[in-house]
Each structure stands twice: as structure tokens, then as C-alpha cells.
């Protein structure tokens, strides 16, 4: 038996997207240019640095933040990535992830802060974030193509949409979790809202915010194959290629490449989170 009413919501959204593309071409062009520029520069930079220097730099950073074990682990992982013959692709993927995370933080942090302070905004944002995370990521590709065409930029934008929610959520959570008495103390000594934010709330929310960055990075990495479907390059493209050709060898190698990058980033970021936590919690 058929349903009495058919709601053509897809059609409406389609119309809206078309209307947006028609009327805001300039805005999308601008976004496209800015994102494309950032992406290009980062990509160029990562691919320009000779690999020994890059690995050394990561090792130093990992050592300082997370200790010796993580430093050694990072060195081996990155070296293996190169040995798989995937250094250039790896760097391109890293550039895409870095750009997407950068944009996610730029927008996610303020949005998260505002949501923590404004219950209404939070109530509005929550279902939106849920949607962004649960709607299959392929669906983003269509408007991304319509707004930004084919290539690395729409790939990055689709990645941003997918990886933004944890950044917002964990920022909000972190700020709301700051001990109420400490916030009260801030007020009691006459802090302005801004002083309260930068001197008390943000520093105390930092572990949570860093956990948000970490999750954002992981989400972004998980999007690289999908992003490749609309023309993003790097390891994601390799995997897509292997699926199309049913080439297990290429697929496995590229998959390992993503795994190496993911683990290195995760360990280093976890190190930061732990350090912040230690600075804030007792013991």
C-alpha cells in the first residue's frame, strides 16, 4: 500500500543547493581559492622537504611530547611508509588531513565555545552535528561537487564536514566540565567573560580540546578514500584505484600507509592530551 503523501525533501534540498550555487558563486569561488591555496602550500612543503629531514623533525617532536618510545615508533613507521614507495602519496594525504583539521579547528573551536556558553545554540547545534557524523559521508560528495567542482578542494571540504563534529563537541564538553566552583571564583574576582575564557576555561578545557583535535585527525584520515572519489589525490586515490582494478597488492600497501600515518599522529596527539591532563589534574 502506498503512503498518502510524498515529501520531496531531496528535491527541496537539491533546489536549495542549486539556488546557493547560482547566487553565491563568488563566495564559493573565494572559499575554493583560499582552501586550495592553503592545501597547495602545505602539500608543496611536505613534498619539498627531503624525507630524512622530515622524519628527523617528527622524531624530535614525538620525543619532546610523548617520549622515546613514540619517537622510535614514529621513525620506523614513517621509514616503512617510504619503503612501500608511497612517500609522495603519504605526504599529499598528510597535507589534505592537515588542511582539513586546520579548518575544523578554526571553525570548531569558536563554535564549541559558543555552544558551551549558549544553551540555545547548543540545542540547535547538537542534531546538526549528529547528522554530520551519521549521514553516510558519500552524501556530502554531491553538494561538495556542486559547490566546488572536482579535485582536492571539494575533497577537503567533505572531509572538514565529517571531521568537524568531534572538535565542536569536545570543546563544548571541556568547557562545561570545568569545575563550577573555579568558574565561580573567576567571577568572584571580577573577571570579564573574555578573561574567564582565556585565563580559566580554555586552559582547563585543553585536555578535552586536544582529544577533540585527535579525533578530528582520525576522522579526517578515515575520509581520505571517500574524498578520493571526487578527485582528491594521495593514498586515498591509491586505494580507490586498487578497488577499481581489484588490485589487492596496491590496496594493502596503501592501506598500511594510512595506518602508519594514523598511528604516528595518534600517538603524538595523545601525548599532548596526556601532558595537558597531567598539568591540570592532581598526581
Amino acid at each position: 500500500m502506498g503512503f498518502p503523501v510524498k515529501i520531496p525533501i531531496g528535491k527541496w534540498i537539491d533546489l536549495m543547493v542549486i539556488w546557493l550555487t547560482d547566487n553565491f558563486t563568488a563566495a564559493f569561488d573565494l572559499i575554493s581559492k583560499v582552501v586550495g591555496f592553503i592545501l597547495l602550500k602545505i602539500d608543496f612543503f611536505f613534498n619539498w622537504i627531503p624525507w630524512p629531514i622530515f622524519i628527523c623533525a617528527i622524531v624530535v617532536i614525538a620525543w619532546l611530547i610523548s617520549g622515546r618510545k613514540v619517537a622510535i615508533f614514529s621513525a620506523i613507521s614513517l621509514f616503512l611508509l617510504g619503503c612501500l614507495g608511497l612517500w609522495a602519496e603519504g605526504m599529499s594525504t598528510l597535507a589534505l588531513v592537515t588542511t582539513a583539521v586546520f579548518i575544523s579547528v578554526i571553525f570548531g573551536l569558536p563554535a564549541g565555545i559558543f555552544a558551551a556558553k549558549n544553551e540555545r545554540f547548543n540545542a540547535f547545534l547538537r542534531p546538526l552535528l549528529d547528522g554530520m557524523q551519521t549521514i553516510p559521508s558519500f552524501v556530502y560528495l554531491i553538494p561538495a561537487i556542486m559547490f566546488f567542482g572536482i579535485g582536492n578542494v571539494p575533497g577537503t571540504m567533505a572531509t572538514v564536514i565529517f571531521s568537524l563534529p568531534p572538535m565542536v563537541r569536545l570543546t563544548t564538553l571541556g568547557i562545561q566540565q570545568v569545575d563550577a566552583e573555579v568558574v565561580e571564583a573567576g567571577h568572584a574576582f571580577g573577571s570579564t567573560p573574555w578573561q574567564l575564557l582565556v585565563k580559566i576555561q580554555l586552559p582547563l578545557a585543553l585536555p578535552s580540546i586536544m582529544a577533540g583535535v585527535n579525533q578530528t585527525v582520525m576522522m579526517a584520515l578515515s575520509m581520505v578514500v571517500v574524498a578520493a572519489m571526487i578527485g582528491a589525490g594521495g593514498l586515498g586515490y591509491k586505494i580507490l584505484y586498487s578497488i577499481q582494478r581489484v588490485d589487492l597488492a596496491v590496496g594493502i600497501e596503501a592501506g598500511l600507509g594510512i595506518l602508519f600515518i594514523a598511528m604516528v599522529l595518534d600517538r603524538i596527539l595523545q601525548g599532548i592530551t596526556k601532558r595537558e591532563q597531567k598539568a591540570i589534574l592532581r598526581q
Partner: protein
Amino acid sequence: MNQKSSTKIRCVDLWKVFGSNPERVVDQWATFDQNITKTELLDKTGCVVGVRDASLNIAEGEIFVLMGLSGSGKSTLLRCVNRLYEPTYGKVFIDDQEVTSLSFQELRNLRSKKTGMVFQHFALLPHRRVIENVGYGLEIQGVGKAKRESKAMESLELVGLKGWEKSYPHELSGGMQQRVGLARALATDPEILLMDEAFSALDPLIRRQMQDEFINLIKVVKKTIVFVTHDLQEAMRLANRIAVMKFGAIQQIAAPSEIVLHPKTDYVAEFVQDLPKVKFVTAKDIMETPDKWMVKPEYSITEMTNKMDQEGIWYAFLVDKNQNIKGVVDYRMLTNGNGDKNLKAEKLISEFPNERSDTFLEKLVSLAAKSTIPIAVTDKQNRINGVISRERLLDTLST
């Protein structure tokens, strides 16, 4: 105690109701059953009463203690003073400034300059060193780093934490952390200290020690203090006056001994019934006016015995015109005389119990056990202020 100078903090008809549409509860309160319970009120209105129609005056330099069981509204009332909670109705004044009508900017100014606050769980900033914690208020005022640190150091010295300035809060014990909290509140040199259960989170032993130190400290730094506690003993030790609260309303405001001796409501009476009276009641609270007990040097023996007959007393104090006690006369010694008309020096007893007006009942009782002569209460110039007879002591102890 000498009557106080000026009023520092004044609350007038203050209400704080939590929930939606709280004004309605204030307006309609008179129509409610006056014995309504918290849950009934919540069911009926969806609101919780924090403070109910509280009015009080706190004098400059006074230690004013807010007392009551958990949920009675002490913290809420305290937070209405610096508007951490926005009162639902009523006014708060500090000096002559109406706090409840200040703009946010003015309010911030008041909070950073005039009031300091100490919290139950210390509320220190865990990511900052002790000295940066203590300097927080000054930092908010925009004081430069060098000045801030020197003031913070002074403040840390006051609370006995010199040498710990570079530590982080979590490296300190609870007692030390609260000293940091206290130092932070003192660093801006505020006129008013608001203290919410400041010592309640500490072990009994440390708490006691902190109370002692605090009493000494505030002799040095003169502040008007509003102190919240649910610990009656603590209230009794620290307070100049105590306000006892129940379900948001103030039951009685009085000096500690007054609360113990003359509780105004059954609730207060129940509250203080387990208190050892001897530790809180002072000579001043129970002494009689001295006139009845005084004879003058120019009296003849007959005049003396007549007066003592009249008053029905066995002893009288011989008091000169400067109100100084010259000695005590004993009725029996006077009457078994050998017909002397005037008092002879050997009949004047020069050893008698003599105490100041702030002596506690505990000591008075032990004195009375040693001597049958009533206790004279004198001031610094040795003038007689009052007399406490044994009957009077027994009366006090038995009620």
C-alpha cells in the same frame, strides 16, 4: 562589646528563588501554607527557594556567620551579596552603594576591589603556580607583573606559605591549598571577605588550627567577614554575631552566647541544645547590675547590714566613688561585731574572685567552687561592671 560603628553590608527583604518565573513565588508566598515543604513547593510551582525574605545589617569589622543545615540557603545568601546569584527580589547595599542596581562593569569593579571570596573546595587554578593563583585578582585589575608578585608574596607571608610560591596547588595539602585560597582573597586587600564553608573540607585537626590562625590573622588585617558554615562549634568560635537559617529564612540573628542562652525559636533551641554552654556563655551575659551588691565606704556598719538585709545578700562589695572595689564585707562578720560603729580595716576581705566580662562560664564555675563570695566583674580600669552570684550561676547551668 562596644557598639559598632557603621553598617558595611545591608540586605533588605532579600529573596532568591530558583526555577522559572521565580517572581511569582515571591509575590504569592503569603498565600501559601506557611509550613510548606521544599518538595511541596517544587511540585506546586516548579521552583526552589534559596533565600526567603532575609534582612540583615553587618557592621564594619564584624565577623558575621551564616549558620544552618545543608540546603538552608547559606551559600545562596552569601552569593547574593556579590551577586554571583542575582537576587529575585530585594536589595543589597555595600557601604552606600546599591549592589543590586550596579551595571555589570560596576559589579566587576566591586568584586575585584571590594570583596574577596574563599571557597569550600578552594577553587584554585590547577594550571597555575601558587603565586599566580594568589595574584589572580590583581591580574584582573590590570596590575603589572612585578607589583602583582610582590603583593602576592606579602599575602602568602600573611598565611604562612612563604617558600611555596613556585609550587602547583596539587603539590600542597588541603590546609595549605586553602591558605592559598585565603591569600588570593587577601591579595587585593578587599574590605569584605566572603567565605563559604572555607574550612569545612579540612580534617578536624587542621580545621581547628586554621580557625585559630584565621582568628589571629584577622586581628592584623581588619576585614568585614561573612562566613558560612554548618558547623556550630566553628560558628561559635569565630562569630561576633550569628544568623541561623532554616529553609531560606533567617530564624535569629544574635551574638553566640545570646543564641545559646536565649534561642528565639524552637528550631534554634534544638540546634544549640547540645552545645556545651560553659564554653560560649560569658560573664557579661549573666552578670547582674552591681547596684544591689554595693555598699559605700562612708556607710556605717548598721547602714551596711540594713542594705544587705534588704537585698537578702550575705556579701557586699565596698565600692568607692570611682567605682573601684575596695574589698568585700561579710554580713556575719559585720553582725558579730563588738559594737563598732564604723568598719575596721581587718573586717574588709581583700581576696575575692574578680573577672573580666569576656570570661567564659567554664572558668566562672570553677571560681565559684572555690569561694562563696560572688564574682565581681570589672573593666580595665578596675571599675565594677556587674556581679555574678552562685545562685545566678546555678540558674544558668540548670536551664
